């Protein structure tokens, strides 16, 4: 079974992002970029499924700038077999989903594993949108995936606990944090990854229109919270909560 894993290049989660002074966005020049953490989990899951023998080939794809090749190389070093870069800037989830649909039609995977959300725009949408465009089943926020020849049993993190659904294949899965702990790529694997095939396409080659639907009117710093006071004891804390803050 072939498997497709979309990975996104995002500002590293350790970077404290700054809003640009002119209010047009956040500062992304010269900041550390990484693979979206949820996508590392997606790649890891794919590699584990391949190690178990259910999956035969893993194709990592990204829609982004030329530099997003770095994230594809990371995916290849973790165990993906080949990679596709679709060059495009600033595609929205709907556009990304349309590109992915075109790639799915070309590659014919049985399963696509995405992250549940990208930690930059936090949209939490692309996987569900791709499932809709393909008319496939979806198992979002997965904390466990059991794959067989004709279906996927997915345990999902939902409000209040866990839910399990059975999906007909082909299907879309999105990863939650507890699905697995991604491996670090070893040096020999990083070297090997340099030789794995990486194809570059343009969105137009796939016949996809990426005209954005959203305009960013402005981006601002959210109101800042002021640090309060340190209290010296539990009794002082409780008395302040009662008489000053009046919340208990």
């Amino acid at each position, binding site marked *: 079974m072939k498997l497709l894993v979309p990975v996104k290049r995002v500002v590293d989660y350790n970077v404290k992002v700054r809003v640009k002074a002119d209010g047009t966005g956040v500062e992304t020049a010269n900041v550390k970029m990484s693979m979206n953490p949820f996508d590392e989990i997606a790649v890891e899951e794919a590699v584990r499924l391949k190690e178990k023998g259910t999956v035969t080939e893993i194709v990592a794809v990204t829609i982004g700038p030329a530099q997003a090749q770095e994230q594809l190389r990371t995916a290849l070093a973790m165990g993906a077999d080949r990679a596709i870069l679709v060059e495009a800037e600033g595609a929205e989830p709907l556009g990304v989903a349309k590109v992915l649909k075109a790639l799915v039609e070309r590659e014919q995977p049985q399963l696509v594993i995405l992250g549940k959300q990208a930690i930059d725009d936090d949209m939490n949408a692309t996987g569900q949108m791709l499932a809709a465009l393909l008319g*496939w089943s979806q198992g979002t*926020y997965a904390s466990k995936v059991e794959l067989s020849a004709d279906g996927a049993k997915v345990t999902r993190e939902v409000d209040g606990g866990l*839910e399990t659904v059975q999906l007909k294949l082909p299907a879309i899965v999105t990863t939650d*944090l*507890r699905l697995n702990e991604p491996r670090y790529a070893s040096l020999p694997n990083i070297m090997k990854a340099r030789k794995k095939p990486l194809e570059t396409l343009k969105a137009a080659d796939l016949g996809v229109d990426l005209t954005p639907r*959203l305009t960013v*009117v402005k981006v601002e*710093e959210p109101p800042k919270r002021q*640090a309060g006071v340190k209290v010296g004891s539990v009794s002082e804390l409780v008395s302040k909560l009662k008489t000053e803050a009046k919340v208990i």
Partner: protein
Amino acid sequence: MAVLVLADRSGATVSQPTRSAVAAASQIDGDVHVLVLGGAEAAQAAAKLAGVTKVIQADGPAYEHGLAEPAAALLVALAPNYSHLLAPGSAMGKNIMPRVAALLDVQIITDIAAVEGADTFRRFIYAGNALATVKTADAKKVLTVRAASFDPAPAEGGSAAVEAAPSAEDPAVSSFVGAEIAQSERPELTAARVVVSGGRAMGSAENFHLLEGIADKLGAAIGASRAAVDAGYAPNDHQVGQTGKIVAPELYIAVGISGAIQHLAGMKDSKVIVAINKDEEAPIFQVADYGLVGDLFKILPELEQELG
């Protein structure tokens, strides 16, 4: 044109985040309809919500567990009558609404924090570090609502009629197998007036129970940092943060939590924040109204006693 809100059921009623979504919808248009999947009692509760003018109830096995594929198909069937389709940003809303949007060829806007106009909304990006105002060119709008940003619509005050949903196709590509939903007497995390959260420093699942005595006395929900959930001290649905739940209670007590930005993204709108941490340099103190530096294992028993 009217606006439609997809409700999240909570037993025999609708969840508080659903009421927040109704409040957001009311800011867009005065004619607010609510769609309830399964749950006749919940539909009656939805009909009483202030501001709701009609309730649509969908019965049938396909809707009972809120499976995304049939729910999205139903919303698409209803969509021609509405300018906006909304849902709370709960696990259910986040699962279903992007699917609806893509079927309608619409770019969804998730987790809106403010309504600036019929086509302009505000939302947080980058773990709450930036607030973006976005305007959509799509004729129809599909949105999920960040509950912490909207005061819930009152549970009483409306008297809407309840009607049956039209039939829609069931793609029948998935089925519900089962659920492990914790039964708890405590308030729901996203609706609680007080939240007590524990972090990695709690050290074990047994120690995590130290928070319960305090939560009992305050009528609080219990939350956790990702580190505490990953370590198995607390269940996954307790996670507060960028990639967990967003809460904005009157009082948030963070115990043994360092204050990583991903955690702050989920709680910094709380009215009053208390931090208990043994490291006086911990970043959590930068957002705390009241900070207490010390060992939680000494402080928690004292606090429970002091609360009487």
